[in-house]
Structure formats: C-alpha cells, structure tokens
C-alpha cells in the first residue's frame, strides 16, 4: 500500500455522509468526468471557497497542488469512483475545479496520439 495513505483514509462516518450528500444527484456526464479526465483546483485569489461540504473541501484540497485524473482522486481517497465523480462534478459546477477531459476519439487524433505514445515508450524504456 502507498505510504501516507492513512492520512486521508475516510472514516466510516465520512463515507456515510458522502453517500448522503450525493443522494439524489445525477451521475455526471461520462464525457465530462471520465476515469482519465484531469482535474485541478481553480485559482482562488487566496480566498477559501465558501459553503463547501467537508467532502468537497477534502477533494478540492487533494486537487490543489496540480492535476490528477479522476481515477487517481478516487484511488488516493479510497472513495468509490461514483462518489468521487459526483463530488468533483459539483465542484466543477461551482467553478472550484478545472477539468481537462480526454480528447474525443477520432481516427486522426488517435494516430497522432498513438505515435506520441510509441515515441514516449521508446524514450522511456529504450
């Protein structure tokens, strides 16, 4: 298991609350928040965003020092993916979170990306 994981393992009560706060909300559009959509906290001008739930605040904190994929946010918090997607969607909707969805699939885009992936693998592993 990864070091430091204990620090932000959610307590049972938090988990229950996470389900409560997400209750009734629609699951976000898959294109918006896919497993590999990259997310980061929006710049805040030094102010703390008001009226965030503890879960929203915690996920926003995790996203505050750079970009992570939605899957990584779930992995680091050990929250179910569905919960994470709903909380992140709420943050994005409130303007607290920036998202970079993966490019839509298209044959040409694929080819460029695949070339870049292949070159990257060669650079990295020889």
């Amino acid at each position, binding site marked *: 298991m990864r070091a430091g994981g204990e620090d932000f393992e959610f307590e049972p009560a938090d988990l229950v609350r996470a389900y409560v706060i997400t209750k009734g909300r629609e699951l976000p559009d898959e294109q918006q928040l896919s497993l590999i959509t990259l997310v980061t906290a929006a710049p805040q001008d030094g102010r703390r965003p008001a009226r965030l739930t503890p879960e929203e605040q915690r996920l926003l904190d995790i996203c505050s020092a750079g970009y992570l994929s939605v899957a990584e946010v*779930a992995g*680091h918090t050990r929250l179910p993916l*569905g919960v994470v997607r709903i909380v992140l969607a709420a943050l994005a909707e409130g303007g607290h979170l920036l998202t970079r969805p993966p490019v839509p699939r298209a044959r040409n885009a694929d080819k460029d990306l695949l070339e870049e992936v292949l070159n990257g693998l060669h650079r*990295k592993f020889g």
Partner: protein
Amino acid sequence: MGFTASSDDRVGLTTDDYVSGGATQTAVKILVVGHFAVGKTTFIGSISEIEPLSTEETMTQAAEAVDDLKGVRGKTTTTVALDFGRLTLSERVVLYLFGTPGQTRFVQMWEDMARGALGALILVDPERLADSFPVIDLIEQYGLDYAIAVNHFDGNPERAERALREALDLLDETPVVTCDARNEKSSAAALTTLVRYLLDRAS
C-alpha cells in the same frame, strides 16, 4: 495555475503524485486485462511511475445499502475492481494503464474502462488458456483492438505460440508477445508491441 513545489501535508500527496505538466496534458488509457492472478497488478506495478492505485465502482450497490455499510467496511478484503498506474510519456501525453479481471459482473466499470481506451493488452497464462476466453470475448465485445502477452511462458516458443493462437482462435494479425510481468523492460516491450499494432491499425 502555479504548482506548489512542496508536498501538501494535509492530504499526504507529493509533487510526484501530480501529473507533470498537467495543464497541457492529454490523458489516454490502455487496458491491461486477464483472468484471476495472471499478473495484471504485477505488470502495471513494474512500469508505472506512481505506486499503483486501486478503486472500486460500487456507488450503486453501496447507495442501495447504506444500512449495510457497516458490514461492507468491516471486510478486510474488499473486492478490488480496478487498479491502475500512470506513465507520463511527454509534455503532451500521459498514459494510464487500467487493470481488471474479466468479470462480467462489473458491467458499469467495464464500460467506464473501455470507453475511449486506445486498446487492450490481454495477459494470458498458457497453462490456463480456457480462463482467457471470457476476457477475450469481453474485449472483442467492446470493440477494442488488443495484443496478447503470454506470461509464464515455457517450452518451445514457436510451437507453443502456434498452439496458443489456435486455442485462442486469434486472427493472424493479432500480436502475441511473451512477457515477464515482473520485469520493467519486458512489460514495456509488450506494451510497445500493442501500441505499434494499434498505430498500424489506425494508419
């Protein structure tokens, strides 16, 4: 946004946990699939730049059973539905590798994983070929291009490969590569074989 160079103690993540150059990155994914204990987690761990992470997609089940949450939490061995790693390949592309067993009961998870994936690497144990049939079926069902990486390979490779192709009913063009998932170079070579094949198919 400006990246804080120091680690953020509140959440225990360090700079290395974040996607380098995230603001310009395009994320892509490749699936690493195979039957139980075939070496998926080992494979991802051997080439991932981050400690492999895992997550579950249990939202609907869990939401239905808030009363049962106590019982669920009490389990020390929860079903790990999905584990993944990351490879930053350039300033423009970051590759995620998602691994999961070929269990059809995780339908929602499979749909999430397969959607938009560049392709799949199917890990196969030649001693348990039949266990790979459902996995291959599932990958084909989702319309993903794939290569086969054979773990724990022994015997005469060429003869074994021919038998394996026949047993798995593979197309002639489907790449078959042997691989020791514990070895970084070997895993990277298998991944490279898949990507070269995907590129051929896209050209």
